[in-house]
């Protein structure tokens, strides 16, 4: 990465909720809408909007189905989503490291 690490941040991923969705989806093969909603403390509409942004960017795939009569939406990370998450986490670590190097003086 050239320049300040903050210039490399992806606007789609650099957001608390969407980063949370990607991180959870990375930790497990598939995650259900209800788990995301409960864990991230969101309304269904709010979560849907964030999922739509991620899906349009090709970072997640959603799959709708039924468990008995109950509708279920499963979210799965795509390969592009995995790469985007990795890049975002690397950038965040670089931002922290840069500040530690420049602002906090050595003993």
């Amino acid at each position, binding site marked *: 990465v050239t320049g300040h690490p903050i210039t490399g941040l992806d606007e789609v991923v650099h957001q608390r909720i969407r980063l*949370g969705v990607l991180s959870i989806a990375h*930790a497990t*093969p598939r*995650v259900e809408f209800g788990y995301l909603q409960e864990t*991230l403390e969101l309304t269904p509409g709010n979560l849907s909007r964030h999922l739509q942004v991620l899906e349009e960017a090709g970072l997640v795939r959603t799959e709708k189905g039924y468990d008995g009569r109950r509708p279920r939406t499963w979210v799965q990370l795509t390969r592009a989503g995995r790469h985007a998450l990795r890049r975002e986490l690397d950038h965040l670590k670089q931002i922290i490291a840069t500040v530690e190097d420049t602002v906090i003086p050595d003993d």
Partner: protein
Amino acid sequence: MSASQEVAMTDATHAHTLLAGAQRAAAQARARSRASWFPLVVFGLVILGSLPLFVYPEPVDGFSYSSSRLDGVLGGWFLSDFGRWVAVYWLVALPLGYFTTAAYFRRRARRTGLASRPGPLVLTGVLLLAMLVVVSLQSYVGIVPGNLVVRGLSPLLTVAVGLIVLAVSDRSPALGVIALAFLGISLLVNLYDLVNLMYRLGWEVPYRFDTWPNVVFPGAFLLVCGLVLRRRQQTP
């Protein structure tokens, strides 16, 4: 502190908050999705369930080794034909164990909203068991070392490798340690009669139950580890 440094500090604080939140959410999801205790308990019970088959019949005049190839690799070489039933048991019980594990993982995913991967364990276990059957039927001598198959416990090695694969796909160090230890135990009970050790320690084991220590040790190990892991994985 200069203005630019203050901006940098704010960026870093924001980055730290985002990073910590993401790592916490991922760790929580990973911990809640793990159900690797279940196959340990299932296969521990499957192994212990084979005990009634590992009872030597009353001594008879003359020795007759099991003659079928399938008995030899899957069921062991014994002084009777009960190896055949051991082979049949493994061929039925192990696939049933994999099926039960996959069904449990699916049910748990529906309940928690977090899927876990039974595929690597099931595929590895079933493929290795199938390979063992093919090797048994094709060429008995030469491909599989005789010492490794005489006790009728070679299918335990397929379970051990399956559990190692599950530990890798689950990114679970605890399961990894258990699976590696179980692989070691599986090799030991396939290559050595634990009853000899018991005799040295002064414990008498009736002749008909000579093989039991080799079955009880790996089975009880998996069962105990599974129950301990269950407590850990179900504690929030």
